[in-house]
């Protein structure tokens, strides 16, 4: 049974990663990040249930709480970014790089 959960978790994680690096819309990127978190949550809970230890459950609860607060942060970030450039295309926000050349 654990194997099925783990495979699902890996599939979810991979979908999240591919979404993270291939999509340009920041909201979709955010959703991919949530997907990554949930893939990890799933694997934590599955392993925790399998070995009969509750600490995995506790950890995933914490992660859910953090993800919730993160969601609030992201929402406000979207608003700010959109106000700045009038778009949420991730390629526009590349001021980390050198703009000279």
């Amino acid at each position, binding site marked *: 049974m654990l194997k099925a959960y783990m495979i699902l978790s890996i599939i979810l994680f991979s979908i999240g*990663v591919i979404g*993270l*690096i*291939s999509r*340009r819309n920041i909201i979709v*990127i955010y959703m991919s990040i949530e997907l990554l978190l949930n893939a990890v949550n799933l694997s934590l809970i599955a392993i925790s249930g399998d070995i009969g230890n509750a600490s995995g459950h506790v950890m995933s609860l914490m992660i859910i709480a953090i993800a919730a607060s993160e969601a609030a942060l992201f929402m406000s970030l979207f608003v700010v970014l959109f106000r700045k450039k009038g778009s949420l295309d*991730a*390629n526009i*926000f*590349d*001021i*980390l*790089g*050198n*703009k000279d*050349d």
Partner: protein
Amino acid sequence: MTNNILLNILLLAPLTSALLIFLLNISRRYTKQTLYTLLALSGSGLSAMIALYISYTSYFEQKLFVSNLFTWLNIGDFTIEVTLKADALSSFMLLFVAPVSFLIHIYATGYMDKDKSYGRFFTYFNLFIFFMFLLVLADNPIIMFVGWEGVGLISYLLIGFYFDDIQNTYAGNKAFIVNRVGDFGFLSALMLLFVEIGHGGFSYDAIFFNLSLIDTPMLSLIALLLFVGAMGKSAQLPLFVWLPDAMAGPTPVSALIHAATMVTAGIYMVARFAPLYNIASDVSLFIAYIGGLSALFAAIVATRQYDIKKILAYSTISQLGFMFMALGVGAYSTALFHMFTHAFFKGLLFMGAGAIIVAFGHKQDIRELRGIRRSVPTIFIMMLIGSLTISAIPPLSAFFSKDAIMGILYASDHLDLFFIALLSSLFTVFYMFRMIFVLFFSENTTEPSKNSVKSMNYPMAILTLLSVFAGMLNLPEIFGGNLMMSSWLDLADKHFVFSHANEIFLMSVNTILICFILYYAYKRYAYKDTILKESTTGLVANKFYIDALYQLIIVKPLYALSFFFDRKISHDLIDTSINSMALNYKKLGKLFAFFENGNVRFYALYMLIGLVLGFIYLFLLLKAML
């Protein structure tokens, strides 16, 4: 105590005035020419007076002046003291160096009048006196070497004085580089001396005291290397090439540095090391032959020169050759006596040449300066006396000094040297009177552009008197003299038996031959235009192709080598490889800049790749462990 101070003032007066003139000159403030003149003349005049006093006391009271300035080096038990010592030889050098310097300073104030580099000129000129005194007064060879290099430097600076003409700079470079060859010899000799007997102290006295500790071959090598130094400085074959070119400098420079004083440093050095050369008799003979060859060679070349100053330059080489001949056979004080008279008459001749050059708007070619007797009568008289002196007409000073050399050569059983000397002496008469007759006894072709300057005439008059009467200092016995100078100098002279009858016979034959040559030169050049018909091709007119030979075997290969290293090695190999390295780094940087584009999604991808690689590594590690 006061004697120390006198010696110090003698040395420091020219240095101080040089420093003051230098400071005034670089301050870029407007300074009156009179102030420069005053400073320059006070520096050299003061030292000239002290020098006369010192040589006077040394001559009449045999007094030794010593001044310990400071300790320069103190390594283990080896010390180099900066000590000034005016023994008989040094005082003798002072006797003509300082007054001639002073007179030429006065002359130079007229010659350099209104020159835009007046201050710079006198800075160098005063500094020259300082270095010359250091050379002469040093009591060990190392301090002497400092002075030696110093005068070489000033010579370089003054030859290239008018540096806006690149040819003058080249002439200065040539002088400096050729002298380097000689200095290399001098320096190696000092090093060998140091290795051999440096432990016993390095003052002249200590060196001569320990000479017997050196093996004979090593001693000969040292003597030879020292002479290489003298060869460079005194412009002897084969290192003479710089002196004719050195005439590019202003004429007072040629008179003071390249005729009267600096070029005689080689003679002084050989005379100073007389005890060494007395032991190394092979080297002494070599010196004599080099001197003879130089004397003859330069005298022959001078017969086909047209530049007044070049004629005089070759004549200087020739006269220095005479001195080396005398040094070589061991007659040191005779050589020094000729150097003494030479300083006066050659200084006088150069001053006359300079006066003519100034009067005729910087023309130097005797073919353009024919028949100027009526325009410059005073210069004519003085030049005539100078030329008669250098030709050794009795009873002018060079008659005594040159005939003394001839007599010694005759008495020393080197008849070949004697005939070389006789021949050069006759050539000397010929080229000097070729110049005189062309300059003064021809149809007038040119008019002076400027009248003679008084400050140039007075020093010339004094030098004329000196070149007439300086021979009295060392009158030989047959004229009722008693060789006062030789006994004063008290050098390690070799003595030759020489009967008075022979001496008188030699003198009269010599004088008759000289008069004959004089008459021949008169017939050939006076009131004729023979000078214009002389061809400028041939061996003699091209200075025996020595310059061309040096150009071919030394300068050209060296230049080609430098060109090769510059173009091929430095430029093509090193520069190109460094440049290509830089170019490739730039390309590589562009590649990485593409990845580092500031887009966070790409960074996430890289992180992912890193993670995957990390996991693969861990997986392989685990597999290996299991």
